[in-house]
């Protein structure tokens, strides 16, 4: 464990945490929002940060570790600037999720779970992100969803990201609403 960086919460953040705690009857539920706060602040929740969260909430470290590792959205190590979460769960898998993942891996020269040397990109293979209707899909750094992925689309996204341009948010109406929207 490196001691070079001491992670702490500021007074304001601690006050915020108190407010979060007040919302729940038990001690455990605030783990998720507080881990999230920590990740926003430090960019990751490395073991040291998990420990900080555990101490702040007076919870067992093992429990915080368990929660942090359950979600791919929490970064247990320092990640690239853009984290490409490619869904390889059932629906996406059937629609070619793995093809997209492998295409990305090839293009960036890294494997899922790794980060490019320039620190720009990380790839993760993740479970269902609740966008099965637009499979195959990926999410970028816990933010924009990129739907109906094709190799061409991936090319454009990567080119844009290299220029620090995030893809636009795409609205995709449900099929049953598609007619309505075309009508109106």
């Amino acid at each position: 464990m490196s001691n070079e960086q001491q992670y702490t919460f500021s007074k304001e953040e601690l006050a915020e945490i108190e407010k979060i705690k007040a919302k729940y009857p038990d001690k455990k539920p605030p783990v998720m929002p507080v881990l999230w706060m920590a990740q926003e602040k430090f960019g990751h929740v490395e073991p040291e940060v998990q420990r900080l969260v555990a101490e702040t909430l007076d919870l067992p470290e093992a429990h915080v570790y368990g929660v942090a590792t359950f979600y791919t959205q929490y970064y247990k190590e320092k990640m690239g600037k853009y984290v490409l979460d490619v869904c390889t769960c059932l629906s996406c898998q059937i629609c070619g999720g793995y093809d997209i993942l492998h295409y990305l891996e090839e293009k960036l020269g890294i494997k899922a779970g790794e980060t490019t040397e320039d620190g720009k990109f990380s790839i993760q293979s993740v479970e269902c992100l609740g966008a099965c209707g637009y499979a195959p899909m990926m999410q970028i750094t816990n933010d924009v969803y990129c739907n109906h992925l094709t190799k061409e689309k991936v090319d454009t996204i990567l080119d844009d990201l290299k220029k620090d341009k995030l893809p636009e948010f795409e609205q995709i109406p449900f099929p049953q609403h598609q007619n309505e929207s075309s009508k109106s």
Partner: protein
Amino acid sequence: MPEIFIDDKRYEFEGSPVLLQFLLDVGLDHPFFCYHPSLSIPANCRQCYVEVGTPVPNRETGDYELDENGERVIRFFPKLMPACKMEASDGMVVKTHRSSELVKRGHKDVLEFILMNHPLDCPICDQAGECPLQIQTYKYGPEGSRFEHKKVHKPKRIKLGPRVILDAERCINCTRCVRFTEEISQTHQLAIISRGDKNYPATAPGREFDDPYSLNTVDICPVGALTSSDFRFKARVWEMNQTPSIDVTNGKGANIDIWTRDNLVMRITPRFNPNVNDYWMPDFGRDDYRRMNENRISRPEVKVDDTRIKSSWHNAVLTFNEYLSGVNNKEILGIGSAFSSVEDNYALNKLLNRIGVSELVFTPNIEEGSGDGFLISDDKYPNTNGCRLLGLKEMNPAGLNKAISAASVKVVVMMEDDLVGRSVVTAEDLKDKKVIYFGSNNNETSKLADLVVPITCSAEHTASYVNVDGRIQRTIPAKETLYTNRKLNLEMSVGRLDRYATKYDNWSSDDNRIDCVPAWEFIENAAEQSGQPFNFADARDVFEDLSKSIDAFSGITYERMDDELGVVIAGSEKQKVTSA
């Protein structure tokens, strides 16, 4: 009384028992993994499925609805239910695999699912032979697997802590180990990490699973995922025999099983006693097998012209009597021991009393504040209360030191207690005195003695101990000495290898049998040699004698200790163990 119908048979019950526990209690075997009677119930393994229905009450009359044949209408739950999460209720109807094809299928399918990523490495797994997963797969599982893909690989041989090793591939994520650290030992050191088919229990990064009760997770792990780093690969379960006994490493007296093979103690595990230790014991108690096997005193030793030589038993008895009769009885000091049993202390006291020596003195071994209020007591010895009830004279270490060093004392007779190692007395204090030491292991004190009588350890004799709560419990011999034989002593258990081994088999030898006798037996021999035997033929005789002559023990017998899982001695419950 409320009734419940299981596979068309009627049972009565009281209260609201957990259905699974009720099935087991009435003797119906039922598969399960995650349920444990002393832990919370997460119902996560789904192995305990049953069909359950309840009768339908008529809202107006309050009676149960009947069908056209006059039978109760039963409304079944639409799906199979986990028996561990159901409470028995009046009129409930339950179908197990004995009467329901659906339940049978449920058991089979859950097992097939659990085994999907399991490495199936029973031949090299320590748990084989005592593995609920193995047993239940054999009884309730599918014949084969339809899973033809590459199995998920997870970390193997992870040292979770100094005493526990994890093979994550074998883990079925029942969470028993996690619940143990949360609910019983309360160190909260383990959690299930990751997700889906990748999860397994772990400590927080950079932390060790050094819980003082960590090895209990090895006992309750229903598969071979958690193994003991010490016992791993030492013996197969079916090669050992198992004998109920008592932990003597501290004052709590946890009930244990001693596992032996060829008269070596291979491991110690806790034995259920709801009044003492439930299903648990501290880790250090399990290490006591070393004391039983190693560094033993075998054959009597006497000092002749400052050199120690082995001696015959006959000579030892003569020397013993010579020492005692060679001096005035006021010059003899008898020291009892809270480490030794009630019987041994009693026999020595009786012998010395008879020649006019006053009561044995003893000093407890209590480290204030070292206990945890659970199964680790401040008292480091198993029988402090026993010594008190016997009427031995309790002294603090300084007092005992004074008593021993007194110039008037010429002969010191000591029951096993490493007083020199404990720094109660020094070699200097014992100089110019004849020291007789009864003990099973070599130690600082035995080294200085002029006569060492090798006695049986708690794994070799029948003897009783009174724990810190005043409960008297007894041991049963697990390990043969040179003079005992498990096929003749019907109290001893006989394992497969013991039963079928002969001297010429390579799995059996005489090497591990120690040349020692119970202390009371040596005392009896000494009494007999001096022409006044006590007529103690076995430990039972000694105990019967003391229960007749000492009020505190009256009415107590070995049978009662066995039947009642130990007997609380009236008046001693409240006796707080404190250093004098």
